[in-house]
Structure formats: structure tokens, C-alpha cells
């Protein structure tokens, strides 16, 4: 989504001036609008803030309750804000998928997990794709959503920063788990016994959560 430059006042400046008065009025109008242009641009799109300056987007994103993570190009961020306000089903994983595609294109997968009936929750979780044709015989579905990331550029600190924004786009009943598999180093946020504790509590350091193989 590109941001358009403000319309020029060429139609006005090309219009005919009958006498000096008209020339003065025309010059005054052009001068006034040119001075107000930067402020007028944001006011002009206040009903569709994804079209305005990025400062406007930042302000409105906070007011509309979307935690927009700064990554990816600006048009993609504007698109996500537009999707949040305009076409957000709220339920399910649709918005989470859109968000993940914005952050790490084509290097993620996102599934709801099933729990084996004969094992204790939360051990015994399995993805639906790993189960057979009739998973409900041996498993029941839980509200845990596992996001598997394979982008090689992901660092633990980056993931830590993006956990809360991603979690806030899911409904209240869901649980979000991350599993990062890149560089032959697999670590997930369920190790070290510390699933995410959000809402204004300091998250543990990256080295504690990501207690997988290798040092960070």
C-alpha cells in the first residue's frame, strides 16, 4: 500500500485570473494550503489512518489495541493495521496467520494441538497432521497453538519482543507456544518450565527460556 504524495494545486494555479484581485486570492489560497499541507494530510485520512503518515499509524495503532511489531516494510505494517480494524474475524487463528506472514514470510507454520487421552496434559500433545484419520478416538483437542518458525534470521531476543504482540492477537482461550527450528538449533518456549507469563511482568531472560542446545 503506497502512500500517495499530496495532490498538487495545479488546477488552481492554472486557472484563469481575471484581474489582480483574483490573482491575489488565488495566490493566497495556494500559499495557505501549502502551509497546512502536512497537517492536512493526516486530518484528511483520519477515517482511514492506514493511509496517513506513519506517525498517525503509530498513534492509532495504540488507540485501537493492536501491538504492531516493527519489522518488515512499512506497507506491510499498514496492511496489517488495516486488517486488524477492518477485516478481523477475531476468532480462530486467521489474524495470527496474517501477522506471521507479515513478519516471517513463508517460514512459519501454525497449528492447534491435540492431547492424547491416556496421558497427562500437557504432555502428550500432537499436531493434527501427525495424527491419523480419526484423531478424536485417541486424542482430544486443546487450545494450545504451536507456531513453528524456521526463518534463519530469528534471534531469541527478537522472538521475546514479538511474543506479546502475537499473543495479543489471539482470543482469550488460546495458549501460544513457539518452536524455533533454524541453524540446527531447536528450542521452544515450553522448556525450562516457563511458558509465557504476559501482562506487565518481566519475562525471564532469553537464556532461561531458550534452554535448548547451543549457547545464545
Amino acid at each position, binding site marked *: 500500500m503506497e502512500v500517495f504524495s499530496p495532490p498538487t494545486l495545479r488546477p488552481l494555479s492554472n486557472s484563469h485570473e481575471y484581474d489582480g484581485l483574483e490573482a491575489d486570492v488565488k495566490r493566497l489560497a495556494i500559499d495557505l494550503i501549502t502551509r497546512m499541507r502536512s497537517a492536512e494530510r493526516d486530518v484528511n485520512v483520519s477515517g482511514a489512518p492506514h493511509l496517513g503518515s506513519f506517525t498517525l499509524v503509530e498513534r492509532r495503532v495504540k488507540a485501537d489495541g493492536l501491538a504492531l511489531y516493527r519489522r518488515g516494510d512499512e506497507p506491510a505494517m499498514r496492511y496489517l493495521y488495516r486488517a486488524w480494524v477492518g477485516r478481523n474475524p*477475531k476468532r480462530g487463528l486467521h489474524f495470527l496467520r496474517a501477522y506471521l506472514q507479515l513478519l516471517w514470510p513463508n517460514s512459519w507454520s501454525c497449528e492447534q494441538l491435540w492431547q492424547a487421552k491416556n496421558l497427562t496434559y500437557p504432555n502428550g500433545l500432537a499436531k493434527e497432521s501427525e495424527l491419523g484419520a480419526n484423531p478424536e478416538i485417541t486424542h482430544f483437542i486443546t487450545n494450545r497453538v504451536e507456531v513453528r518458525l524456521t526463518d534463519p534470521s530469528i534471534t531469541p531476543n527478537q522472538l521475546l519482543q514479538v511474543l506479546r504482540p502475537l499473543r495479543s492477537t489471539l482470543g*482469550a482461550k488460546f495458549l501460544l507456544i513457539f518452536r524455533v527450528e533454524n541453524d540446527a538449533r531447536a528450542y521452544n518456549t515450553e522448556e525450562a518450565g516457563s511458558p509465557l507469563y504476559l501482562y506487565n511482568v518481566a519475562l525471564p531472560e532469553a537464556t532461561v527460556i531458550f534452554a535448548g542446545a547451543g549457547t545464545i
Partner: protein
Amino acid sequence: MAGPSNWGGSLTTGGASPVVVVVTGAAALAAPGPVVGYQPDSGEQFTVIVRDTHGDVRPAPASAMSFEYMGTPADSQMQLTFTALSQRGANPIDIATMRELVSYPSLYDRSAVYLGEFDFLLRRNLVYAYQFLSVWNEQIEEGVRGANVHNINRLFVTVVPADGVTQESIEAEIVRIIREADDSMRVSFVPRVIQLYAVSITAWVSVVHDPALVEAQIRQVLIDEYGPGSRAAQRGQELPRFKVIHELLSRKVEALRGSEADFDVVIPADVVAPRPENWRYVDNNSITVSIQIATANLSQFGR
């Protein structure tokens, strides 16, 4: 008749306050013969439950009540006595509460899906009924108390009722509200735990002010704004905003207004990690104030 969401108090529009009569005890519409009705014996007792009021109505216990109008002269032989208050009514919302309610994101369309929307739903419907309310979900609960299969599809609520409201009635109301919004979510109540904020303030004021008085004023400002009955303490899982404290003290304490005055606010990090059921406020014991003589202005003009 008493529809949903009347709990939050009605904006008064005048007119008769409707009374829903729920008659318990020996009321039966048994009709032997052509007469439909019930003839009570003399001295028989009935229980009447009033569900709608206009505003915050709290009759004194055992005070006399009366019908609004008499149908027949025989009605005056009924004696009505007020026995118990389970939920008091509420006055119309004041501006400060309204400001807070409209500060929520406009994404909410009366269909609660996100945790913040459930939080707004409860606060909107329980205005003035609680002193403290905190709502959280399975993800947060798992971070505090570990995973449990009973947490699936469950919302956790800690509520401290306000004056005039019983714990059972507000819990029943919360269950009803959440069930109306999403009846796949179950509710679990967690008892509240008080965790005070330790605030430490050092103030430099001009020598003309009485240090004891300045300290008393600073304490009063903090307790008014962050004490147990305040609006700021009503929410769970919050952090104090330093800039609010700075602005408040600068504005409300006379001694801190001049250009020679300065102050520092320190809220040390918590020793015990705060939990969602923690009711956090500021108490006289948790505030430490230290008043120093200002040396900010070295012009030696007797400040």
C-alpha cells in the same frame, strides 16, 4: 423483566421503579373451584425480592417499607420490612469512570473474544460494584501455577466487592455476564492477595515549609490516588506510571510547585513477582517520604 445488565445502575429517567415480586414460601396458585389465587392466612410471611432501583439505595436494616400505591384498603394491613441487601444499586456513571470506559480500543463490538474484551465487558457491567477486579486466561494462569487440564476454556477472576455488595452476589453476576458473552468459557474465582507498592519519595523544598505538613500532604495525595479505594487500584496486573505520580505531586502539593522544589519517586522492583490475583495499592506503611531543604537555587536570596 429485569433484563440483563441492569446491574450497572440505570441512568435515571424518572417514572416508577418497577418491582419484580418473587414470592417464595407457601405461594401456590392452586385453584379448587372457580377462584384463581391464593388466600394467605393471617400472619403468613412472604419474601419479596426487589431487583431494580434508581441509584444507590441502601435502606437501614429492619426499616419499614411500603407499597407505592394501595389497591384496596386491605393492602394497608400488610407489613413490609427490609431484611437483607445483597446488591446495592448504583448511581449514574460519573465523568471519570466514563472517561476510563471510553479509553478502551474500539475493536470491541459487544462480542468478547480477546482477554481485554472480557475485561471491558466485566468492568462495563459491574460499575461501582467492585473494589478490585482482575481477569486472566489459561496462558497467564499457566505461567503462575503450571499447566492443568482443568484450565482449558476457563477464565480466572479475582473480585473484591465494594461496600454493600456481597461476594456471592457479585460472583454470580460475573458468571452470568461471561456466560451470556461466551458460554464455552467457564469461570473460576481466585481469592485476592494483597501486595503493597513500596514507594519512596525524596523531596527538596524551600526552608519556609513545614516538613511534617509537606510529608502529610504527599502521603495524602498518594493514598487518594493509589490507595485501596482508588480507581487506579481497581485493576489487576498493572504497573504504576511514574509520569502520573510526578504530575500529581507537582500539581497538588503546594511546596513542590515552586522552581526551587524538586522530588524523586522510586518504586523498587518487586521482590516477589506479582501475580494476577494480587491487589496492589499504596498504604501509609509502604510510603517513605524524606524531606530535604532545597539547594537548587544558589542565588543566595534567602531561599
